[in-house]
């Protein structure tokens, strides 16, 4: 118990020290949305994912490290909308739409990591002709057979933003998602899905008024 208390205290102290803001400035800026396109593979099964990232807020965090070196991070928050599809032969095709919240942290060299929880709707199409048999024993084919599911997705990824160093409005990224569909056979279905794609930073498409906060920190005060 004492050890847990000490850990909490230690974390609290460290966090307080590191979260000190030497200066901060809040502004509003009209920012355009990003469009993304990805290969949406589930290990070996192909698919496609298209999405939109609507900027919500950005935090530009600059901090001075030891020896006066300055480090700048950009923390972006997006509302995302995605439409995805994968094809698992003989099992199903799955078309799903999700709405999510994406948290991205980009370093001053352009590398970024992101995490995004999403909620959505999935419609599967069975991977073979589907038959139904009525009470008289007549067999018929059921068109577009499949199921509707609720979907939760958690994803984390990494990428490289070409606009940071090369001023090109693109990012390339890889993202690993875990999809959870329910109610699937009265339980749930889990599926890994990997995205390999590009994000295009448009200049004018779907511009929104996003919060922008600049924070400067001096990590090691004299």
């Amino acid at each position, binding site marked *: 118990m004492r050890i847990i208390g000490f850990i909490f205290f230690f974390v609290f102290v460290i966090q307080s020290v590191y979260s000190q803001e030497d200066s901060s400035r809040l502004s509003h800026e009209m920012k355009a949305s990003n*469009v993304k396109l990805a290969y949406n593979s589930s290990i*070996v099964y192909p698919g*496609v994912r*298209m999405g939109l990232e609507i900027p919500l807020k950005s935090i530009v965090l600059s901090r001075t490290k030891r020896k006066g070196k300055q480090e700048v991070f950009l923390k972006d928050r997006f509302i995302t909308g995605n*439409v995805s*599809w994968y094809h*698992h*032969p*003989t*099992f*199903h*095709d799955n*078309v799903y739409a999700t709405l999510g919240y994406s948290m991205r942290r980009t370093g001053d060299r352009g590398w970024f990591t992101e995490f995004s929880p999403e909620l959505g709707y999935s419609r*599967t*199409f*069975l*991977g*073979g*002709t*589907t*038959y*139904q*048999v009525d009470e008289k*024993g007549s*067999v018929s*084919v*059921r*068109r*577009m*057979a*499949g*199921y*509707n*599911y609720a979907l939760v997705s958690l994803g984390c990824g990494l990428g490289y933003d070409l606009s940071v160093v090369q001023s090109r409005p693109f990012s390339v990224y890889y993202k690993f998602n875990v999809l959870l569909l329910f*109610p*699937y*056979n*009265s*339980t*749930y*279905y*889990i*599926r890994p899905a990997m995205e390999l794609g590009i994000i295009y930073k448009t200049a004018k498409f779907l511009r929104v008024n996003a919060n922008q906060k600049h924070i400067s920190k001096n990590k090691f005060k004299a």
Partner: protein
Amino acid sequence: MKQLLFSIFLLLMVSSCQKEKIKLGKNVSETFYVENKGASMRVLVEGNTSSKTVLLFIHGGPGSSSYFYNSDYISDNIEDKYAVAYWDHRNAGASQGAGNADYFNLPTMTEDLEKVIQVLKFRYGSDISIFLLAHSFGGMLSTSFVTKGNNQNLIKGWIICSASHNYPLNDDYTRHALSFYANQQIALGNNSSQWQEILDFVIGLPAGVLDLETANQLNSYAAEAESYFSEVSPFPMVDVIKANAIRQNYAITSTFLNLKFSQSANIQDELRNYDFSNALAGVSLPVMTLYGKYDFICPPALGNDVISRINSTDTFSVILPNSGHIGMYQDQAIFCQRVNEFILQFK
């Protein structure tokens, strides 16, 4: 963007609306689904459909999958002669559905099997010969099917491999088999401590029908016991998955999560109330039983009970000498040979 979306939508529409042309062939591989009461059940038909003979696997569980029976050996030695249908029951393998737990019971599964057979006849012709091959829990399901109404007229023969038709009786036979071999192996000094533990458990069992938890514990000991015989090679589950998961497009997480759900579903309790022994008197089909000599999960005595109770003149009993519970792998040569001979005789 719109065009791309539209193209994908169109592709899906076209592919799902195409009418499948069914051609008989000597080396087919076709997947279709049969829908009934909240479940869409996967059926994979492989092999020689031109033979007009289909061997329909009824897998174990409940909640396992037919994926694991589709071995290279069966492909090379049965599918070259006949078609083999690998059916995933509801809530099993790649079978799909939404909230369908209310239908996860033996009567509905029996109805499912009737419908799978009707669809097989619809696809490959009403004149096809169908043989059931039941394994483990599949014995319960197939017995429920053949003893219901005139269902046995839909098939040409019934093959029972390491399967059960009566769980309380099954538990009795498992107790006796474990007790017999435990005493024998302890006397021989083979794995004495392990056998002693099994013997102590069996001796301590209460009389009468076991509750589910105790029956599951007995089942675990039964599964363990076969591994103490050097003649029995273990079922290479991991190797089978590695070799076939991608090649056969396994729905791995679906199979695992369906199994997990099934193991704790109400059906497990319900099944303990079924006793089909007396109903077997109405069966007049050709029947072959294949049981592993060292199968403690479904001991060979269960096969004897079936053969002694049915009213068929065409009965065959085969003991697989190097098998435990998975005879189709552990004695695959004898298994395929005897299955082929049986089908050839009665198709």
